[in-house]
């Protein structure tokens, strides 16, 4: 093995970390009420997916780096999502002075 710093590291350990991060994100998306906090939880979940991409790229496909290329695309889409999502939140706040998702019920009858 080339990298000695990776001595006893396996893909499974990173999968467990990624799963923990993803589940924390799921918990946050369900329980949070502030729209910005929900966006933060979504970022956690995207990061969990990225860790898995990079770990699989490192342990299963270390020559072609396809997983790392995909991570860069996820990073790009996440940046776009954050920008548009936060713009929507600010737009909602300007209209109803509130960003608690329980109170945003304009389209309910």
């Amino acid at each position, binding site marked *: 093995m080339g990298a000695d710093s990776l001595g006893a590291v396996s893909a499974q350990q990173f999968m467990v970390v990624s799963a923990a991060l993803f589940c924390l994100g799921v*918990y*946050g998306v369900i329980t949070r009420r502030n729209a910005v906090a929900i966006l933060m939880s979504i970022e956690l979940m995207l990061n969990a997916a990225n860790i898995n991409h990079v770990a699989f790229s490192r342990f299963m496909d270390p020559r072609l780096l396809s997983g790392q290329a995909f991570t860069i695309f996820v990073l790009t889409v996440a940046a776009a*999502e954050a920008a548009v999502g936060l713009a929507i939140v600010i737009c909602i706040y300007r209209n109803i002075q509130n960003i608690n998702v329980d109170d945003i019920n304009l389209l309910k009858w």
Partner: protein
Amino acid sequence: MPSTAPSVSLILLIMLTITPAFMVVTSRNIVHAAVYLGLTFVGVAGLYFLLNAPFLGAAQVLIYVGAITVLIMFALMMTAQRLIREPRNALPNRVLAAVTALVLFGILGVWVPSQPVMAAGEAAPVGPNEYLDKLAEALLGKYLLPFEIASVLLLAALVGAIVLAKEEKAS
């Protein structure tokens, strides 16, 4: 594989990733949650470095820690102070959400990694000298079309965010 015990650096990075992530979803103060989110991103960047992906680690620090956290802070500062302290969700909802998350963790974090298919072969990783070459080849060769689409997506998101957040004065 010499042993299955994780190395010290991995344990430290996992702590640096998971602990702030827990605070992100439980802290009642949204600004504190945003700061903890930045810490989580730093931990994930460390994991990338540990996984032989230094370019991604640097990109993670630049984009997530540097840009997205600051963007979230901006959004928080542009909304009202009274919304900074978030009201807690009802207890049954939180218990249900915790059960859902734990079951999901049982599937994703315990059952899936224990599957034999995951014990894949070990090939030598690319060295630091050819790492960037390989990544550039992947991005600009095999994945050229998604790369260009991503640039168009960024432009669309830029324009869309400006249009959405712009103050309307005409009326």
